[in-house]
């Protein structure tokens, strides 16, 4: 490259470039709004107001964000190992079976604070098992994990349809879902946590305890990836499988463990809608949250500190999008799917699109950083 380029400072690398990518994604989404014949700025105002304008809105935003924290962490853990777990959707869906079975068994017997830990374990275990097979096939038989996890999404969907229209449906019921869960399997709402900030939240808003679990998991993931030997091995393998092999890290073990952690995290997402909101297992309760996780992980640069805000942003899009669909019927919730796609495109596949430009600008602003970069390269 003949143009001088600067080594970017950390804040530009981790703050500025993702921000530019995000802004471009939203600008293109704005064009779609324009194409539909609405004012994108007006739409943005309604969206933000719907998500953050009231205690109600904030609670709903955080409820949706809970799902995306789980699935985003799931995708991120796999990314660190150089794996693309596109199967979060299926892992979460099938984990709903684990949660459902535990809840159906214990909801009349145990109080929620005993059902909850068992359900967490069940969700994590089933999610992890669903990720285990693709992981094993990748590690031992060399089949591509992206394809197998996509296939497993479809297999999970078929299995759940079979179970929900058959064995899990109460006798005589019409709707393909389990019976309503009793109080022993209903998570307490935590809307009251927002009250000290002067916000009022109706008890019907499904913002519940699993949000806290999601935050705990974010810390756990951070600790595993950056503070344990396992995390070091995962990152080493992700950075250079050759180096990992040379260092004596077992390829099979690391792929399988990483994917099982990833599947477990995706599986825990099932807790939020099942125990926190609908109080039953219904068809398609995941409704795309597993895929949103991909966008969230890419946006958050696979770091929990980035994933939580990214999840809240997508929660905002879901909640604000519902309000927006009410005000502007032409813009339904499917708008979010477009935004999700654009974020994946600009923050993921095209993440280096603006880097050379930014580097050139930095170089022209401070020639010192160029010489520093050159020195750094020599060293």
């Amino acid at each position, binding site marked *: 490259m003949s143009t001088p380029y600067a080594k970017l400072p950390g804040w530009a690398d981790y703050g500025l470039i993702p921000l530019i990518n995000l802004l471009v994604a939203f600008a293109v989404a704005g064009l779609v709004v324009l194409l539909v014949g609405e004012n994108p700025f007006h739409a943005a105002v309604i969206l933000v107001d719907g998500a953050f304008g009231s205690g109600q809105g904030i609670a709903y935003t955080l409820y949706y964000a809970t799902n995306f924290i789980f699935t985003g962490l799931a995708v991120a853990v796999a990314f660190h190992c150089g794996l693309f777990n596109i199967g979060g959707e299926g892992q979460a869906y099938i984990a709903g079976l684990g949660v459902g079975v535990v809840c159906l068994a214990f909801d009349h017997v145990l109080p929620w604070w005993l059902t909850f830990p068992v359900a967490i374990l069940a969700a994590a275990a089933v999610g992890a098992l669903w990720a285990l097979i693709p992981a094993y096939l990748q590690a031992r038989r060399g089949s*591509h994990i992206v394809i197998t996890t996509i296939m497993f999404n479809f297999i999970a969907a078929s299995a759940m*349809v079979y179970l929900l229209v058959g064995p899990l449906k109460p006798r005589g019921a019409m709707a393909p879902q389990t019976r309503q869960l009793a109080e022993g399997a209903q998570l307490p709402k935590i809307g009251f946590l927002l009250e000290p900030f002067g916000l009022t939240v109706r008890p019907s808003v499904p913002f519940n305890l699993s949000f806290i679990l999601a935050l705990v998991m974010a810390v756990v993931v951070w600790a595993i990836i950056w503070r344990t030997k396992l995390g070091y091995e995962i990152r080493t393998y992700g950075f250079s499988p050759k180096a990992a092999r040379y260092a004596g890290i077992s390829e099979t073990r690391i792929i399988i463990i990483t994917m099982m952690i990833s599947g477990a995290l995706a599986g825990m997402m099932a807790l939020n809608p099942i125990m926190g909101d609908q109080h039953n297992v219904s068809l398609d309760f995941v409704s795309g949250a597993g895929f949103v996780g991909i966008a969230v992980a890419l946006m958050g640069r696979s770091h929990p500190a980035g994933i939580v805000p990214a999840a809240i942003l997508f929660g905002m899009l879901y909640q604000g999008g519902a309000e927006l669909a009410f005000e502007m019927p032409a813009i339904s919730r*499917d708008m979010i799917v*477009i935004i999700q*796609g654009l974020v994946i495109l600009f923050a993921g596949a095209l993440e280096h699109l603006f880097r050379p430009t930014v580097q050139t600008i930095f170089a022209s602003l401070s020639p010192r950083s160029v010489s520093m970069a050159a020195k750094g390269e020599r060293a």
Partner: protein
Amino acid sequence: MEFVDTLINIGNSTIRVSVPLLLACLAGLYSERSGVFDIGLEGKMLAGAFAGAAAAAVFQSAWIGLGIGMLISVMLSLVHGFASITHRGNQIVSGVAINFIAAGSTIILGQAWFNQGGRTPSLPPEARFGSITLPGADALRDVPVIGQLYSGLLSGHSLLAYVAFLAVPFTWWVLFRTRFGLRLRAVGENPAAVDTAGISVAWLRYRAVICTGILTGIAGCYMALSQNAGFVKDMTAGRGYIALAALIFAKWKPVPAMFACLLFGFLDALAIRLQGTPLPLVGKVPVQLMQALPYILTVILLAGFIGKAIPPRAGGVPYVKER
């Protein structure tokens, strides 16, 4: 006699179901043989179907619909190419992005333009690709077996279905008998060698990706303009992924790709046919199992139990010229 009729019926619906799979599968073949993985077949088919149906409804012409459908699909392909060839982004991430963009925008734009809950207006026969009766099909209808096969199985499909099956030998010829095909395969195996020979890796891959766009566009238009009389939201329903599975199943070869698509199509046709009827020996098979069968088969194949599928060596790896 009734048995033959049933077989021909199933055969006929197998062909109908297989056509979009086959077109998408061949589309993926061009791209992946050139070293560009394409998860976005699904999205491009969907966008092609929507654009085709929308244009056909506005201009009341199937041909304009087909043209626009192919155009939009090629444009999405170029986005994929721009991200994964020019900017060396992650090809899988880019494909996933295209799937979402297509899934969302077809619904939003469809609702905004036509106001029918994400559908496009129902197309009259002259704006669709109707079925073509092959010469002599009516005369031969009563000849047992051969006549029935000719008139019931081979005749009566839409033009695009014949295009799909003719695309199989054509693709074979392009890949294995032309200079372009040789280079295309080479760039998927060893791009550095192609580069050393003074051929542009990027331009070759772009051409491959454009071929993909054209074929996914036709696949989408077949669904919207032949199988159905318009676009319904999410009408591809995972066929792009099944096509991808068929491609792996066929080990990235055109003729086996056709048989793989026919097999998956047959399973689908059988699933519809057998809904609720008990089978000998196994009893009643849940429909869901039949629907999941292509995916399960693919996983088993990928696991290497039915021969090993080896992808093009440079697949998924962006080409960086040595400096």
